[in-house]
């Protein structure tokens, strides 16, 4: 056999140039991707800042006439988002009361029984549930609660739709956190004769606490900004109300109302700024909790 090697005829400088060009393309694409975040934060901060004052947090939304008068004389629109804050708080607390314990328990169930077909089926259902568009959960809460239980739009219906949204998020994060606990820790507990339920309360949950907290915070930051399902359930209300059987407002619902009223434009900026800052700080808090306790 003859040993014949081809002369290498490629153009190295051309290949190097393409290589460098591609790198710049990747950097340019990445910069373009993050530009919107600066634009959105910048726009909202500049235009929304003016309306943020004490009244913004303590007074309910103004009516359109008050807003028009203020806008026409160039003054700050009186009133704020207090009815939205209380409504959001009411619904988020209700949703959490339902979704957090149930989500934790289901997550632990799936983790503890992951060899069972049934548990894997539940996990798949959870994944499907997580992908359901939020507006559909609005329809569901409307059919179940608005039509059949409270006979009218209500805070309860809103919180049910939010709870169904939270549930799969918490189940998934619980299961994933638990799976990161070394098996040896469980085995050590069992080796000491710890009963099953004590192992869960005294070992699993405390050891994975920061992971569980991260999951809950992320789920909360998701539902705090949700608007669509609330339009079909809580509807919105100009008054501060804590009655779960009556319509209530929420911060994102107020943004929608302000947006539809040309006199309230400057309030939309402020309300959007507030909602974004609140949701993003919750998000950052969740991530910092997660990164501080990386080993679990």
């Amino acid at each position, binding site marked *: 056999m003859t040993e014949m090697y081809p002369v290498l005829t490629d153009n190295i400088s051309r290949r190097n140039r393409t290589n460098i060009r*591609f790198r710049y393309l990747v950097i340019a694409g990445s910069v373009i991707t993050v530009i919107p975040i600066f634009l959105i934060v910048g*726009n909202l901060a500049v235009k929304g800042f003016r309306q943020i004052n004490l009244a913004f947090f303590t007074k309910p939304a103004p009516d359109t006439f008050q807003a028009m008068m203020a806008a026409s004389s160039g003054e700050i629109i009186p009133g704020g988002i207090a009815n939205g804050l209380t409504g959001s708080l009411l619904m988020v607390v209700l949703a959490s009361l339902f979704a957090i314990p149930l989500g934790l328990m289901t997550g632990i169930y799936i983790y503890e029984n992951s060899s069972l077909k049934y548990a894997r089926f539940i996990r798949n259902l959870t994944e499907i549930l997580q992908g359901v568009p939020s507006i559909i959960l609005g329809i569901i809460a409307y059919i179940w609660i608005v039509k059949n239980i409270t006979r009218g739009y209500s805070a309860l219906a809103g919180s049910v739709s939010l709870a169904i949204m939270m549930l799969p998020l918490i189940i998934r994060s619980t299961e994933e956190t638990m799976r990161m606990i070394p098996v040896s820790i469980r085995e050590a507990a069992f080796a000491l004769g710890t009963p099953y339920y004590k192992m869960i309360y005294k070992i699993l949950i405390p050891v994975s606490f920061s992971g569980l907290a991260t999951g809950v915070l992320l789920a909360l930051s998701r539902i705090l900004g949700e608007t669509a399902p609330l339009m079909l359930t809580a509807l919105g209300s100009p008054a501060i109300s804590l009655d779960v059987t009556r319509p209530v407002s929420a911060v994102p619902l107020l943004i929608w109302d302000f947006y539809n009223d040309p006199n309230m434009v400057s309030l939309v900026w402020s309300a959007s700024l507030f*909602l974004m800052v609140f949701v993003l700080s919750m998000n950052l808090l969740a991530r910092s909790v997660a990164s501080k306790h990386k080993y679990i």
Partner: protein
Amino acid sequence: MSGDRVTKVLLFISSLTILLLSAGIVISLFGGALPAFREFGFRFITSSAWNPTAGSEEYGAMSFIAGTVITSILALIICIPMAFSTSLFIAEYYNGTRTSGILRSLVDLLAGIPSIVYGFWGFYALRPLMVATGLTDQGFGVFTASLVLAIMIVPYATSLSAEIISMVPAELKEAAYSLGATRREVIFSVVIPSARSGIIASFILALGRALGETMAVTMLIGNANVIPKGLFAPGNTMASVIANQFGEASGLKMSALIAIGLLLFLITALVNYLGKLIIKRFA
């Protein structure tokens, strides 16, 4: 009963609620959609009529299916180069560096902004730009909605793609480098082929997100109940027609809106299932 038994039973019961919840959602959607399907049959899906006038009521989902599919696919097309370069930046070029961490957090922030804030920002900041291009009179329409939708789904496509790209074994990349390949050549002949199905899955899951997105699209698409006549023409999506008209609906119209919700549920479930299937085969 001992604590052990109580705990086991409690855990099992809580898992049952997921079962009941899922079954309840499907049954309620079917039940609510039934009158519309009984009235219009299969035509409900193929027809693009939308006439709520009492007496001559006729409803069809086609305009909204078309609007949803067109905006989501267009959003995906815009999202692909952005998410692709960002995931290469994070997981390949600057993998493990501070710069990569910062970019990753910025992209995560995009995922944290509420949909309604995107819609409002798109309305006040992006729409005037669209008007300035002269391509549309009002700035509303499929393209504006897709652009914002693309920004919204970028983080989902990016984080999963980046994770999968960073899982490509260093040994394979080193083998290619040791043969004289440049970084771009390593990316195209080793990294992408190894991560291909995972990257595809991440874009399918991002598409699943886009299909169900409601508020931002509702505020930007122009809400015309017709099949969009072009990229800059107004239209309506399944999610946004529900958001816009559910409150004032009753009777047959309500049933038609629930039926659209059912169809949207089935489409997103199918797309998500496909994405998850590819991921599972990849892992």
